[in-house]
């Protein structure tokens, strides 16, 4: 279970998150929506431990352990995965090699045996196929020269291989074509189970048709201004955020 209490964070001294309370029970998928610049990506970064963000108040526990005191790689080992809104390019770094190094680092920290190159490729090929990704994506350099949609799909492939316990998907659906959207949603649905939970940041109801969330939260000006069931997303699609924000203010 992810438990966020009174979380406040700033960047370069500018407060962005201003007291977030949010609980995601195990096995649930929650959607986060909200206007541009409201702090959604910031929340993802703070949960995964990006250094430039300063936590000024509050606490975050994940399955009882204090996430905020951990290094990013320790959080990854604890099962936190962030699919980046803008995935990063690593020139010269082979995608398969990157993924294998990451997977083995995670396996080591969990006391599991490392996978050799052959075992890994078998796994990676199977997952690529399931996500209908061209196999040559594994041979290319991480995100270098990938199209916008390919970058997003590569994030989902990484998630499928690394098998996190908490996935934070930051607008992974933006830029995806209709078929890809369905594949990505299926990818997340396949991971759904009692020890998987997800925070899905999105601007579109469309993803939530395939990936039905347990709860939907609206983030505005660094606070959660409204929470509800899946129907809340549909309502927002029609009425927009303006009314909600005015109501909260």
């Amino acid at each position, binding site marked *: 279970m992810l438990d966020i209490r009174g979380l406040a964070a700033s960047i370069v001294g500018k407060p962005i998150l201003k007291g977030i309370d949010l609980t995601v029970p195990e096995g649930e998928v929650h959607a986060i929506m909200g206007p541009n610049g409201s702090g959604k990506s910031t929340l993802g970064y703070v949960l*995964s*431990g*990006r*250094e*430039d963000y300063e936590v000024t108040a509050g606490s975050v526990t994940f399955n009882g352990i204090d996430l905020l005191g951990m*290094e*990013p*790689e320790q*959080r*990854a*080992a604890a099962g936190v*995965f*962030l699919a*980046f809104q803008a*995935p*990063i*390019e*690593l*020139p*010269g*770094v*082979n995608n398969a*090699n*990157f*993924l294998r*190094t*990451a*997977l083995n*680092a*995670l396996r080591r*920290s969990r006391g599991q045996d490392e996978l050799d190159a052959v075992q890994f490729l078998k796994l990676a090929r199977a997952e690529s196929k399931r996500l209908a990704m061209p196999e040559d994506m594994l041979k290319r*350099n991480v995100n270098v020269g990938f199209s916008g949609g390919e970058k997003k799909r590569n994030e989902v492939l*990484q998630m499928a291989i*690394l098998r996190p316990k908490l996935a934070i998907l930051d607008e992974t659906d933006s830029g995806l074509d209709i078929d890809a959207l369905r594949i990505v949603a299926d990818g997340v649905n396949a991971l759904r189970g009692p020890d998987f939970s997800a925070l899905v940041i999105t601007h579109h109801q469309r993803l939530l048709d395939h990936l039905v969330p347990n709860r939907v939260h609206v983030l505005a000006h660094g606070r959660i201004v409204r929470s509800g069931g899946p129907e809340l997303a549909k309502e927002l699609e029609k009425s927009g955020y303006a009314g909600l924000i005015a109501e909260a203010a």
Partner: protein
Amino acid sequence: MPAVTETLDTVQSVTQSGYKWGFETAIEMDLAPKGLNEDIIRLISVRKQEPEWMLEWRLKAYAAWLKMEEPHWARVDHPPIDYQDLHYYAAPKKKPGPKSLDEVDPELLRTYEKLGIPLKERALLAGVDPDTVQQTQVAVDAVFDSVSVATTFRETLRKAGVIFCPISEAVREHPELVQQYLGSVVPVADNFFAALNSAVFTDGSFVFIPKGVRCPMELSTYFRINARSTGQFERTLIIAEAGSHVSYLEGCTAPQRDENQLHAAVVELVALDDAQIKYSTVQNWYPGDSEGKGGIYNFVTKRGACRGARSKISWTQVETGSAITWKYPSCILQGDDSVGEFYSVAVTNNYQQADTGTKMIHIGKGTRSTIISKGISAGHSNNTYRGLVRMLPGAAHARNFTQCDSLLIGDRCGAHTVPYIESRNLTAKVEHEATTSKIAEDQLFYCRQRGLSEEDAVGLIVNGFCKDVLKELPMEFAVEAQKLLAVSLEGSVG
């Protein structure tokens, strides 16, 4: 265990912080008194049982050296070196000339084992087709301080007509070849350090590949400085006759000491018509500690002559060690359509200084050269690429391509690029590209978010940056070099 695997395992086992090759071998040494003069040179010559002509050659070099001054144009900075405060000869005491590996001092064998250098001749991969095994075998010449202590696979090589032996032995056994080629690429008075080396060189490797022969295995020399207050002055000479091919690799380490030690080597390569020499270096001399104390001064002259038409010399270097590196492996492209290549990765961390690059001298028609240089600086270090491309009037339609990239880690280090281009032929073409980049914070975070430690992340990004050079190394050594890069950059972030 297969020798290469053993080498790799050794490298793997030495990960995590600091220089792990820094141990000292306790062995009885035969040490010349400190200082440099004609008597010391005579003593070296006597110890090496050299013929008269060799002694004269040395004395001539010494006379030239006395009139020369230490060069100061490189972007490196060090306290003056007291050339009279060094030992110029240091050798493990032994019965004269071990004939087989069984006679090599076990303490020495253990040293090389610890370093991961296979001095035992054995099949690399048990149960594999012997033809492919042959390909991956590596013959090793091990030089310990001033002498070669063992050379492996000599019998196999001899059958192919290849001579691979300590240069001191070549001086005695193959004087006609040595006299013809020694100093023919790097003349005795070429520069201050080359002259010093010519006067006092003690050992190194000699390679001769006869006409039309493809050397049946990789050749490798492994240099180890052990004794205190000694200079290491090795000399390597490789001759590839018409149509022959050879791939040669050198590696080097030294114990961890507070004092600076001088290493001034000379390497000469000669390639005749259609011959190809591939010379790879993984340089890992002790770099000094994180405060900049101690470490090797590595002042090296390496030059290859492409004398024959269509000949090719390719230098690949991975430079991670030494307090100061001053080194410009060069090619003299004399034969028409000959090819010179220089692939370099130079890493500096802490207070290391590297001023390295190459010279491509295009003399013949249609000569081509490629320079790929990757400089990585971290800590307070300084990393300079200095390269010269010269197109002489006869170099019609010659071409050069230079790519020079720098990667900075942190903001207290420096990267500098100093290209010199001289073209005296209008049909010759020179291209130069250069970039400088930093490891971005978001790249590190991305890797760490996926579970990599910060140091593994840096290692991965750096290896990606160096890929174009690492792929030029023989496969086994490429893996070793990758590990070495990661180790040298430890503690460079955060």
